[in-house]
Every structure is written in C-alpha cells, then in structure tokens.
C-alpha cells in the first residue's frame, strides 16, 4: 500500500440546535495515519474527538471534508461497499456499557463482527472468540454471561475483544482505558502494543489518559474546540509542547506522588463553547500570551521540524521561553 492508511482532510461536523444555532463540534480537522501507526487524539472534554471518530466509522455524516481509507473515498462509498469494508475498521466505544447490547451474551457480542464479515464458519468463529477473550484475559469461560454481570473495566475489555475479533486494519479506540485500574490498564496497553507489532493494526487512540498515550502512540494530535492545535511525535510533544493549550494540558497531569508539586502552567478564564465559537484564535480569552492579532485571525498551521505542526501566532517566538 502506498500512501497513508487513513487520511482525514478538512473534516467539519456541525450539529444544528435550532434555527439560529449549531454546535460546531469539529472545524476543519486534517490528519493521516500510516499502516501500523498509532496516532493519539487528545484534548479538552467536548473538543470533538469522539465526533471525529464517529465520522470515520460513518456513524454520523460529516458536514464537510473527505476521509480516505486505503485510498478509497469512504464518504462517497455506497452503503453496501462500506459494509464490506467494515471488518477492516472497528471502534471501541467510550462508554462500554452503552455499546454492548444487554440481551446478548458475551460470546455472541464478540462473534457478531465475525458473522458480519462472513469469512469464517461457526466452529472457526467460536475458536476465534475463545482466543480473543483469553487475549483480553476475560477468559473463554465468560462467553455465556451477560454484559451487566461485569464491572465497567471488564466491559471495556469486552469492547476491545469485539473490536479486535476481525483482525482489523484500523481501530478507533475511544477512551479504552478510562475504566481500568492502573495494573490492568498497563497490561491492556501492552496488549494493544503487541497487537500492533504482530498484526500491523493502526490505532486512532482517543484518550484523556496521557500516560497511556505516551506509552502506546507514535504521534499525538491535540484538539481544542474542534480544531487540532498541535501535532507531533509523542516524545517530542511531551518533552516540549509548543502550543499554550498543549502546555497547559500536559503540565496538569497529576503524578501519583503526593510530594510532587501541583502543576504550574494553567489557563484562566471562561471556557468558550462550540455553540458560540470565539473570533480569531479559540484560546485567546484564556491564553497568557494573547495579543490583539489573536482576537482577529485564527493562526495558520506552522510547520516546525520533525513533523511538528502548531497553530499559534506566537509559538515560534515563545518556543525558547
């Protein structure tokens, strides 16, 4: 395959509220994910991460933009051809319970995408389900139980098992670790890394769990109010975030040590809303570096070295600060 596995270009998603207003959830978002690559999408709650993921799965129709998967135009595709492609693109949903149908047994839930893919017979499917349940360490013995009999963290692993059953090329993982305790989480993260190494699967890893992101992902894209404000290689971004929102976000991590001081770089002021997007740079009302041009004009994407891209009028000037 030449070119990226997934290319999202100029994605826009607005949800109408009433005749005058709309929620501008995603505003011109572009990124690419290569085969076997893991890209993290992090950012403020409500900044449009899940909406972006749902557009890729065609669970909702974008307002504008293009999404190409393995060279094919996903949005222009007939429903039939998209269904045929679905085993190759899977999603792990943010709220595990919500996405598991309460009346189906675990075995049937995990088997469903295999059935839809239609490539394996019943016996082969059963083997695969048992194998994948062992892989996420729920054990094949759980096959006959129902979702409500599991805790949230266990349900999250059921969702991961279901998404991986068809050996997809791309998995959108929406908060895959939010209900896992640290030790189980560490193992699930290793599992995700192994699968990537073994099967070459790519991830769009949506998460607030920055330490998980650091462990699993090659690159990071940081969103604020429907836009990507900074992208770059994971380590480089964690070590030296350039955009003020990235700085605030990454320095707010609470380390599991009561003697480490609480973070320094914080944002003050009202959080603006995607219903009334501010003029100019979306951060200007809260940004300690804001100047008058920030209120007038949304900053262009500036390319720095090593694939870093930042949207901020002052990032370059402040890079040394």
């Amino acid at each position, binding site marked *: 395959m030449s070119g990226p596995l997934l290319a999202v270009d100029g994605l826009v998603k607005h949800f109408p509220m009433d005749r005058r207003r709309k929620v501008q959830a995603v505003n011109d978002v572009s990124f690419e994910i290569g085969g076997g690559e893991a890209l993290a999408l992090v950012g403020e*709650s409500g900044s449009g991460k899940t909406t972006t993921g749902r557009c890729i799965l065609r669970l909702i129709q974008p307002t504008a933009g293009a999404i190409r998967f393995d060279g094919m135009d996903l949005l222009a595709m007939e429903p039939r051809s998209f269904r045929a492609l679905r085993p190759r693109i899977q999603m792990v949903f943010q709220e595990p319970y919500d996405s598991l149908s309460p009346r189906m047994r675990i075995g049937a839930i995990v088997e469903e995408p295999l059935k839809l893919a239609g490539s394996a017979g019943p016996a082969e499917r059963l083997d695969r389900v048992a194998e994948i349940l062992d892989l996420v360490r729920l054990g094949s013995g759980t096959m006959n139980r129902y979702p409500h009999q599991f805790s*949230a963290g266990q349900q999250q692993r059921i969702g991961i098992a279901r998404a991986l059953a068809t050996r997809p090329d791309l998995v959108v993982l929406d908060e895959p670790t939010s*209900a*896992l305790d640290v030790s*189980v989480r560490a193992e699930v993260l290793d599992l995700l890394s192994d699968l990537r190494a073994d099967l070459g699967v790519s991830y769009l890893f949506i998460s607030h769990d920055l330490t*998980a992101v650091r462990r699993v992902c090659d690159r990071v894209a940081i969103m604020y109010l429907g836009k990507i404000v900074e992208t770059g290689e994971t380590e480089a971004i964690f070590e030296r975030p350039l955009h003020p929102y990235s700085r605030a976000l990454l320095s707010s991590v609470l380390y*599991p040590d009561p003697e480490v001081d609480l973070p320094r770089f914080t944002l003050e002021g009202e959080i603006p809303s995607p219903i009334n997007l501010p003029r100019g740079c979306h951060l200007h009302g809260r940004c300690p570096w804001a100047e008058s041009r920030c209120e007038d004009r949304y900053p262009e994407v500036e390319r720095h070295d090593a694939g870093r891209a930042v949207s901020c009028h002052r990032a370059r000037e402040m890079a040394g600060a």
Partner: protein
Amino acid sequence: MPTLLAIDDLHVSFETDRGRTAILHGISLDLEPGQTIGVVGESGSGKTVLVRAVLGLLDAPFAIDGGRIEYEGANLLEYGEAELERIRGRDIALTTPEPRKHLNPLTTIGDQIAKVIRAHADVSKEAAMARAVELLGMVGIPDPELRLAGYPHEMSGGMCQRIIIAMALAHDSKILLIDEPTAGLDVTISRQILDLIRGLVRDRGAAALIVSRDLGVVAHYCRDVAVMYAGRIVEQAEVGTFFRQPLHPYSARLLRAAAAARDRAVGRAEATALLPPALDGCSYAPRCALAEPACEASIPGPAEPAAGRWVRCLRAAAIAHGEVAV
C-alpha cells in the same frame, strides 16, 4: 471526631444461574467530617458495589448478606425505600462512572437537573433552572443556559459525566460518594472538579469517598486511602505514608504500575494483573511474589503492623519492618 458514616463488616453477594458469588467480604470503613478517603483497587474489586450499597441502590439479584451502615444513629441497611429516597441526593450524594446509563435519553438536561433539585427543595421550576445553570457553570460546562435544552446524546462523554457531578452537588450533601470523577475528563477539567469537591469538604464539613483508578487524584486530593482487592479492603492508610511505603504487596504493585505508566523506558507491565483472585486463603496469593504456603491456608485478617496502617497480609509486619521487600 464524630463519625459521619460508619460502614461495618458489609457483606454483599450476587445470585447467578450457577449459584451465589460473594462480592464484598466484610468491608469496614469510617468517614469523618472534613475527611476525604480515596478508594482505589482493581477493576471489578467491588468499589462501585460498595458505594451503591450505602444508598440502598443494589437491586436483586444483589443481596446484602450482613453488616451495618450507620448514619445519624440509624442503620441504613434497615431503611425502607421511602426513607432512603429522603436521604439520597440530599444527605448523601452519589455519582456514577457510567453517566449515560443514568441519564434519561428522552428528557432534557435541564429537566433532569431541575428534578433532582426539586426532589428535596421546595422551589419553583424557574428557580430550579437558575440553580441548574449555576451548577453546570461550576463543573465547567460553557453556555449552560443553552445546554439545558439539550438531550444526553447531544453531550460528549465528559459533559455527561459533569452533569452527573453537578446533580450530586445540588443539595450541599454532607456525604459525597464520588465514583470515578475524572475518568473521561481531560486533566484541566478534572482538576477544576476536584478543587470544587475539596472546597465543599473543607468549607462545609462534608466528607467524601472518592473512588478513582487514578492514583494521582488520590495522591493530591485525598487524606486517606483504602485499597480494595477482590471485595476486601487490603490496606488503609494516610496518603503520605502510603505513597512512601505501601505495605500490602498489591498496593506496592499498584504504585509500581502507576510509576511505570509515566515512564516510557520502563519495560512491560508485570503480566499477572489479570489472573483471577483465589477463593480460599489470601485472595491475592496467585499473583503475589511473597506468597508462602500459609497464605493459602487462611484469609489474613486486618492487622496494624505500624501505627495508623491497616493491612490484610500475613507478611505485613515483616514488610513494615523492612525484613522483606515488596
């Protein structure tokens, strides 16, 4: 300090087609005014079951098999539904880690919050709505007036979570049972919400039980910590000493995992986290590097190997005295 809430030897089980499974095996925990206890532990260890039991929210096939939950001189386990309704959300508030499951998809956010407010306050619909706007603002939701007209499916995961937290803050409750407040929230919003809870506890003499998988939250926002494993509290301590020297092998492992999560250079996770707990003897034995034959023979009771430290481990005293390393 007088105790606000005293949970004593609470046993809970669950009935399945294959029989009864014990889920909580004798939990005891006291909460004082001004205190914040962080409850951490394995996913599935019973944290959510514990906090829901306090408010009588476990329906069949869950069963309470024994214990007391004392609040204002009464045993909450003996309360009927009407008496529980009177204290739920007013005296004792609870948040859920699965917000969407607990919001009504067919009713607006505003109506749902107003209903919570009016359940215990004799105010007009308008006054309740005004208070709802205020509460949403407190949890960092921008344009709260406009959001009140929206439905749960129009909110992001983190917004639903904050709506649930806003509801729990509606009545200045004396006891806050906060289950996973920050899962699904970005760190800056998380901090804002934790600061809010801290303020309520500090300024109003409330007390909070914060269930969190995030040891960072516990380290910075709780005074004490209780570690749960397979339905038991295996260690309880003040936060500072706990992070300096965990005494239970499972606690030590949790702290190592949390430290490792920060650090890319650290190798793979210790691959035992997903082994099921043992049913006889110490439930942690199958995963414990320090296990000895005695550990499989009997269930370790709580002991105090060092002042103010409660641990369920046969070797806790040796660990506390540095004779074995965890």
